[in-house]
């Protein structure tokens, strides 16, 4: 039982990737590009030392977004608000961090805490609306994402909280004092953000919280059956609220690696779309901390190696198509597996039922 779960957990993602590879190959053939060679150039390019480092850095952000989504999923919450939570968090962390100067470790800690708190607060709005007003977190989060984007764009204007470097179009927050920087680690041909270590700890923390704590137990049980958990004395609405806030707090750490080790200020060029990525990774990694890690690296690899496609006359958007297909096929695969398992279980239960009924019947016949 356990083994088959692990088996399907590995086979399903691979099948999804294979499906999307087939589709992409088909599209490439239609346009007259050789699929095998194209994919090979992509893989070669993606595994050059320079790119591996860049992929690890991107993957570190993706991983945190994935964990944020996974915590929500465990509670049957669809946190599509990761985008807004991340944007608010990284912006305010950059603003607060840029406004003060503190001893090195303290400064970094403050920035990280501000990020987590702001992300958590923004996430808890959706949690509050869900618990108190019964509003689907999907809808409220979509709206909150747009509002977050607008608010940050508004506050980033020069004269408010942002500034504009001379001769540049890019708006950004004040540069952090060096005490608020996190060092980078030399690796292969580039520099890895040391925040990668933090994201590993987030993964470990996620696993411990989920599997070794009362909170995690309550969370999983509420996710499986709202009513049963309630009967068991779990305050389910409160759990929903806390989970949404927690998911937001983790989402708030998504951009920290970039902020602390690379740009040292928030600017409008900070990437968006972490919500979709996070959700996709949580689905692909089956909410498991290790699974999400593999998925995050794979996603970062796809993103990065897409760069070589344009040079070869293949539009890089084929990678977006591929990612979309992977998400869809993985979900379809899980759904089909679930259906098959259910049928098998039903059959088992059915057989067991017949045996149970037939045994006393046989005995009664014997007695008669």
């Amino acid at each position: 039982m356990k083994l088959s779960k692990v088996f399907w957990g590995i086979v399903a993602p691979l099948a999804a990737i294979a499906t999307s590879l087939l589709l992409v190959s088909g599209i490439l053939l239609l346009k007259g590009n050789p699929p095998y060679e194209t994919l090979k150039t992509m893989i070669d390019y993606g595994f050059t030392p320079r790119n591996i480092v860049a992929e690890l850095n991107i993957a570190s952000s993706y991983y945190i977004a994935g964990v944020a989504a996974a915590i929500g999923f465990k509670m049957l919450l669809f946190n599509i608000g990761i985008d807004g939570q991340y944007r608010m968090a990284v912006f305010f962390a950059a603003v607060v961090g840029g406004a003060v100067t503190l001893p090195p470790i303290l400064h970094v800690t403050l920035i990280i805490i501000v990020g987590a708190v702001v992300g958590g607060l923004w996430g808890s709005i959706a949690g509050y609306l869900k618990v108190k007003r019964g509003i689907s977190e999907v809808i409220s989060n979509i709206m909150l994402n747009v509002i977050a984007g607008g608010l940050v764009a508004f506050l980033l204007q020069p004269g408010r909280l942002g500034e504009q470097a001379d001769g540049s179009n890019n708006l950004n927050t004040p540069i952090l004092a060096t005490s608020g920087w996190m060092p980078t680690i030399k690796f292969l041909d580039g520099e890895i953000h040391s925040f990668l270590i933090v994201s590993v700890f987030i993964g470990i923390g996620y696993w411990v919280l989920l599997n070794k704590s009362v909170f995690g137990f309550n969370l999983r049980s509420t996710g499986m059956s709202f009513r049963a958990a309630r009967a068991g004395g779990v305050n389910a609405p409160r759990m929903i609220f806390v989970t949404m806030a927690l998911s937001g707090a983790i989402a708030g750490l998504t951009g920290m690696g970039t902020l602390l080790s690379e740009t040292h200020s928030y600017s409008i060029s900070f990437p968006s779309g972490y919500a979709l990525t996070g959700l996709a990774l949580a689905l692909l990694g089956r909410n498991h901390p290790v699974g999400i890690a593999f998925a995050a690296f794979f996603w970062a690899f796809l993103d990065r190696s897409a760069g070589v496609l344009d040079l070869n006359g293949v539009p890089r958007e084929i990678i977006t198509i591929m990612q979309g297909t992977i998400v869809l096929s993985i979900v379809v695969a899980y759904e089909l597996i679930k259906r098959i398992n259910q049928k098998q279980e039903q059959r088992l239960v059915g057989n067991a039922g017949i045996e149970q009924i037939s045994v006393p019947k046989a005995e009664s016949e014997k007695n008669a």
Partner: protein
Amino acid sequence: MSILTKEKLKKTVTSPSRIAIIVAVVLIVASIVRRITGADDITSAGATGATLRFTIPLLMAGLGGLWAERSGVINIGLEGMMIAGTWLGAWFGFLHGPLVGFICAAIGGALIGLFHGFLVVKIGIDQAVSGLAINLLALGTARYLSSIYFAPNGGDISLSPQVKQPGVFSVPILSSFLADLNAKNIIVISDAAGILGGFVTEVSYATVLLFLLVPISTWLLWRTRFGLRLRFCGENPVAAESLGVKVFRTRYIALAISGMFASLGGAYLCMVSASVYREGQTAGRGFIGLATVIFGNWRPTGVLAGSFLFGFTDALRVRQSTSVHAILLVIVILGLLFAMWKLFQRNYKVFGISALSSLIVGVIFLKVPKIPDEFVTFFPNLATILVLVLLAQKLRPPAMLAVPYREREEGH
């Protein structure tokens, strides 16, 4: 029975007159504000025309969302379907003219809707996942196809070649008469003429045709057997199936229509609102469409009202940003009038809330010289959140919205 018909009668008698009163009050206030602030654009024919052009895409996305949600399926893929519509409309419009563009967009959208249906109805995956994946796929595919088809034809990866717009018409005598009246600058009457003028001057045929989908949707959903069954599937699929309604088939049809409408909205966006496909042209309008469904309490007329409101703010922002500021004053006056009416009704709680919020808006009007564009951009989203927070008890979504449903399998 007799009480029921009486009440119904009363409702039908009062509601149009009530609407007329509200329209009159808004008009008078707008007219006064125009004089005070000098924001001439808020009641001009041009503003109405622009509002129409911004409203229709939102309306189409909203109606698309409505059809899907009434059948019990949430359609987060509206944005992706709109993107598909802009692309298909632009490409086939460029090749064979606007009519073919619209038809191809409709077919393409319906197919994507059916695809969404296959995933969530037949396979039964999470409705939000499917919708988001469709958005992602549409975005990637549109860009990919643009690089193949647009680039060699005078466009590039994010821009199509110029597309011919569908024809426009003005109602012969009425249009010029209203324009004259508007120019005379008589209080209220000129304003009314200005606003009405926008509806009859240089209106695109596409606008009229797509606008007709509002009454058609209302009629289909509330006056036909098919519509009753469709809404039944959204309220209680189990009961519907036990009475012989084919839940899967109904939802497939609803989603095909949903996709078709959203895609038509996209086609309108690139052929009427603009005359070219631009990447990112939909700019989250699919999501605003989703918001109008909530805003409109899952009713076509409500969706229409929401789209008008959001389309109006969008149009003002693009045309003349001082108008947005003037609108604040309209809100203040209307809010105070509403508060006084509630005071008259001795509803002190509502009076307090509306008076206080009008005063806050009033302070903003006096202190802030210009409303930042960013705020106008997310106004629809904020308004929806506020509606959800303040009116959640009065909203009535379909009972089984977004709840997965499995049809009973034959022979088991």
